[in-house]
């Protein structure tokens, strides 16, 4: 789960991170008394908002109001700006980059830092980035901070202050179960202090049970995705109009791929997981119906999952909701025969392979 900048800063601040004085607002009047000059920053979960015009500066409330009106409601990479962060303007001497992420390749935490802050780290040449892996068995040790300070060619005084920042960020990253904790830019002010200019935090969805305080946080998700998340169903809204349901993430993706290869366009990715509980299957179908697909492609491989009870759930869902969306069903495996009978009964269009099903879906949609 990604956090908005202001939420990320709020969280880091709890751990002792210096952040600029700031106020979040959805209408300009809230920041009448702010001590200007200030930066007016769009709060969206997308990168590159600066280039998109989502950050402006204001020397007075009047200027702020103007900037506010321009930014609020803006669309940045498909996200509507609903909130704006008004923040004290910093006297920037240097801009650094600092982050902790999970390096899946090595299976441990990766610390990255650079003197080339304020730009996308992907665009910084590798030799300008200090990298260090940390075993979770020992965590962040002084030698890493020492080597970091040296690599960034900081003064001893700066290095000492940076060390504190690094420890705070690591502490937050670890304690809050973050996948990513990034400060970019980490501003070194003219007065010689470090302040988090921006902050990106992605929390591990798998660990949210340990952090119930984030449970109801705005996820910037589609309402149906939020609904699905609550039900524990993997549901992703896509650009197309065809709903794809399968059991297993890999199989669902593969089904989507075949569909797209055959000229269809997936509108929903819905992974039933390992369930063959008709009730769960029904709930999944209700969600699918709410997404209003033109056709549904159902692909079930019954290994442990029994095909017939899945089919039963589908049938009941169609009947109860009086759904008239055509369903092309490919079903294979345990109790396959019984399942096929049930699906035929329910008026679904049968298919033997994923390709066949995909072709059929495209045909039905075109018809």
């Amino acid at each position: 789960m990604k956090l908005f900048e202001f939420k990320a800063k709020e969280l880091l601040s709890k751990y002792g991170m210096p952040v600029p004085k700031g106020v979040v607002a959805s209408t300009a009047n809230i920041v009448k008394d702010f001590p200007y000059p200030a930066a007016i920053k769009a709060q969206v979960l997308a990168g590159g908002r600066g280039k998109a015009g989502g950050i402006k500066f204001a020397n007075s409330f009047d200027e702020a109001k103007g900037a506010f009106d321009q930014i609020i409601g803006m669309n940045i990479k498909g996200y509507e700006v609903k909130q704006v962060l008004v923040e004290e303007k910093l006297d920037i001497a240097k801009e650094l980059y600092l982050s902790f992420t999970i390096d899946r390749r090595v299976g441990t935490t990766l610390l990255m830092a650079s003197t080339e802050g304020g730009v996308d780290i992907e665009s910084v040449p590798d030799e300008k980035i200090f990298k260090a892996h940390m075993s979770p068995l020992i965590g962040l040790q002084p030698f890493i901070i020492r080597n970091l300070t040296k690599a960034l060619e900081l003064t001893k005084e700066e290095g000492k202050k940076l060390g504190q920042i690094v420890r705070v960020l690591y502490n937050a990253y670890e304690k809050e179960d973050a996948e990513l904790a990034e400060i970019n830019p980490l501003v070194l002010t003219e007065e010689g202090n470090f302040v988090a200019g921006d902050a990106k935090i992605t929390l591990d969805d798998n660990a949210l049970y340990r952090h119930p305080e984030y449970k109801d946080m705005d996820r910037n998700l589609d309402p149906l995705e939020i609904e699905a998340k609550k039900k524990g169903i993997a549901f992703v809204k896509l650009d197309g109009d065809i709903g794809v349901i399968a059991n297993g993430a890999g199989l669902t993706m593969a089904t989507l791929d075949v569909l797209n290869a055959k000229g269809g366009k997936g509108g929903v990715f819905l992974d039933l997981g390992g369930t063959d509980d008709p009730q769960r299957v029904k709930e999944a179908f209700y969600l699918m119906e709410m997404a209003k697909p033109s056709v549904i492609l159902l692909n079930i491989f019954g290994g442990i999952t029994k095909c017939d009870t899945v089919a039963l759930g589908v049938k009941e869902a169609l009947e109860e909701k009086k759904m008239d969306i055509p369903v092309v069903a490919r079903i294979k495996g345990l109790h396959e025969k019984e399942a096929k009978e049930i699906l035929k009964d329910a008026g679904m269009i049968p298919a033997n392979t994923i390709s066949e099903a995909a072709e059929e879906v495209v045909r039905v949609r075109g018809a």
Partner: protein
Amino acid sequence: MSILVNQNTKVIIQGITGHQGTFHAKAMLDFGTKVVGGVTPGKGGSEVHGVPVFDGVRESVEETGANASMVLVPAPFAMDACFEALDAGIELLVLITERIPFHDAMRIMSYAKSKDAHVIGPNTPGIISPGLCKIGIMPSHIFKKGNVGILSRSGTLTYEIVSWITESGLGQSTCMGIGGDPIIGITFIDGMELMEEDDDTEAVVLVGEIGGTAEEDAAEYVPSMKKKVYAYIAGQTAPAEKRMGHAGAIISRGKGTAESKIKAFDKVGVPVASLPSDIPKLITG
């Protein structure tokens, strides 16, 4: 032969008395796996399908000589279960549990490495060598003894591919799910190394998906192998920044696209199937 498991592997199931545990204990016993015990705190002294249940792993290892464990305990308790198994001397952990926090997974993997133990998973369907041993939740009936080794990040998609392989007349030496999470134990490369050494394996199939660089890394390893490698990549049409079910299946910050993976395989001459059903055709030529 086989990799990591064989007919002598003695398995306990952590979480055996749960719904899944009971079901898969039976399935593994039916398959012929030496399931020698189960562990559920507070249920020690009972039995599941004739298998003795213990309160703790050390006890179970002392009583049964188990050297492998299948972990089915819920995510919030998985790290503790793994630590318990590792401290009791378990050498192979098959970590079926899904949704384990990443920081916990990192700790598990690092601690296992410190104990020279192997971890398969998390979020894996397990490992199976037809005719020898199954530790996992895969449907045994779709497998057939043969010479194709399979390494996969997926579950049902693997079954789909396995069933096509079996229907084609080929069979499997060992089929291992490496897990659908970003942080896993045994990697594609580890599995490929083992399969390269395994006399029963003639060809290796990699079932990959979007997210991370596991497939690109695997491709780099291919030239050092004598055995032929085939691949399938799921998620070719998945959008960026959306987690496609698996925690590991996400194209984030431009990394982990199917395109990059297929390109990497192409470069080293690994045929990439465009349909799951194409895999056996590629193998038999």
